[in-house]
């Protein structure tokens, strides 16, 4: 065990009795800046982005399980970050962060590639590692309980680069007017804000939007002084009010 790791373990033992969490060795080793060589080895780099636009974030990933094992399109893995327990369903060829790419799925586990490294993760096991993320990836952060924190400056850049990425049609559900999102394009602003095809939007800050008025209504999020924008949305059979807070 190297000295850095020993320090991490010692801190962990000392702070445990105070009910505090210590830096894990992974956090000490993996937090922070990214250099150009690492950017060149990323599985999914942001086109034209410099190393300064990336950040390394220490995480522990847990493989909850796999589905449809094999190399087919049906195979996917369900992976959680243990600090928030937020999960993602990842298919072969898709990435976690910009660096970890899923290369194989079996009923026993998955194989990930991180640059030249190949990692085997059994079902149910934890993987302490680091995700390299572009600043766009953190422009909208899902805080849970339908609360999102957003960075207006980054949203503006995302909008300029990838567009609004959606189309909506007017519908009525149980006598309530709503917009049904008929298209939510991958990478666009709507998808980054957490919307999906088929979602119904009933109100933005209490007002029912028209199809043409949806983008201007959500554009309030591009203004740092907007504070919070409330969107009443239905996904499938559930309806809730999502809160977008600027940070």
């Amino acid at each position, binding site marked *: 065990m190297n000295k850095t790791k020993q320090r991490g373990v010692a801190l962990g033992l000392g702070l445990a009795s105070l009910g505090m969490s210590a830096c894990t060795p992974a956090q000490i080793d993996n937090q922070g800046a990214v250099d150009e060589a690492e950017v060149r080895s990323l599985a999914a780099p942001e086109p034209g982005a410099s190393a300064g636009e990336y950040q390394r974030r220490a995480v522990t990933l*847990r493989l*909850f*399980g*796999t*589905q*449809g094992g094999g190399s087919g399109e*049906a195979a996917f893995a*369900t992976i*959680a970050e*243990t600090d*928030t*327990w*937020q*999960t993602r*369903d990842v298919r072969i060829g898709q990435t976690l962060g910009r660096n970890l790419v899923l290369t194989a799925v079996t*009923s026993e586990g998955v194989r990930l590639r991180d640059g030249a490294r190949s990692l085997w993760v059994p*079902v*149910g096991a934890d993987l302490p590692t680091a995700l390299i993320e572009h600043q766009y990836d953190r422009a909208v952060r*899902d*805080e*849970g*309980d*339908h609360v999102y924190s957003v960075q207006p400056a980054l949203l503006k850049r995302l909008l300029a680069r990838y567009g609004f990425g959606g189309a909506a049609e007017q*519908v009525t*559900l*149980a006598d*309530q007017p709503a917009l*049904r999102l008929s298209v939510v394009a991958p990478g666009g602003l709507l998808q980054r804000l957490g919307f999906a095809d*088929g979602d*119904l939007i009933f109100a933005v800050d209490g007002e029912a939007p028209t199809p043409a008025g949806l983008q201007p209504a959500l554009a309030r999020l591009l203004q740092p002084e907007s504070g919070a924008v409330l969107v009443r949305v*239905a*996904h*499938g*059979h*559930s*309806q*809730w009010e999502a809160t977008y807070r600027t940070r």
Partner: protein
Amino acid sequence: MVHLTEKCSAKRHLSLRRVCLALGVGMGMVGVSASAHAQSAPSKLAGIGDSISQGYSANGWLGEHPDFGFVQGTDAAVNSVYSRFKARVPSMAVQSVSVSGAEMVGGSNNAAAQAARICQQAQKPNRVVLELGGNDVCNRARSSGADPTTNMYSATTYRNALKAAIDTLAGCLPQGAVVQVMSMPRVDYLYEAGIQRRGLYCQGVWSLAGICRIVTGETNAARRASVGARINEYNEALGAEVSAAQARHAAKLRILTDWQGVAASGRSLGTYRFTGPDINGADCFHPYSSGQRKLACVAWETGEFGVAANVPSCVAQ
């Protein structure tokens, strides 16, 4: 052995508890210890759940109505788990963390994420009721391939998500807390129930709002039954994890479930065959207050103060 453990969990009387303790000593050899039965007096209840726990549309109006939720509700028509605790312990408190749209497995409001929010509460509850699973099925895309369950989570995934939640709770709940894990309803029955309830109207709502298309968009009964078979696997995995978690956390928690196996028809949420009158006529999905009342009754009767044999009378109300 597992069967005996479940029987012990359902017993309330002291004389029976002694029997259970004796059995527990024997079962210690297979990882289930007698200390599993040590529990504190109830003082605060928390719910982990989804829109059902949030009383969505339970009074006939679209939207969340937590007063009608089967765990945290206060409306007399529901006679929630909280109301029943309050009748026994007037100082009983409640602080639910359930979130509409939540899954056992997926997203940022899953069981483990909600468990972590309970751990952040200033006063920790010593009673927790967990009810999730419907969205794990209904949020998955309908498959047009040969296998209608292609897009569904595996039972292993489902179990590991529950394990993460229970282990998180075990890390923060007070000694002697009771965690009750409810099985998930067979949402594949929704298609027939909706047709029975409002026919074409329900088909229109399901299509327009994209409600549980993995079953409501599936006209082939055999394919819907395949989805139901996966739900049975989820509930079996849930029952197995409750037994395993009870052994892991025997010194601290008592962990209960209503699930008694697929064969115990009508004796748990997971084996209750709901029909048209059970679902809301507005959104053709959620239970009305009468359905919430049934849920509360099943949860109570399979909990620490109930009698599991009464469950059939709960759902017959």
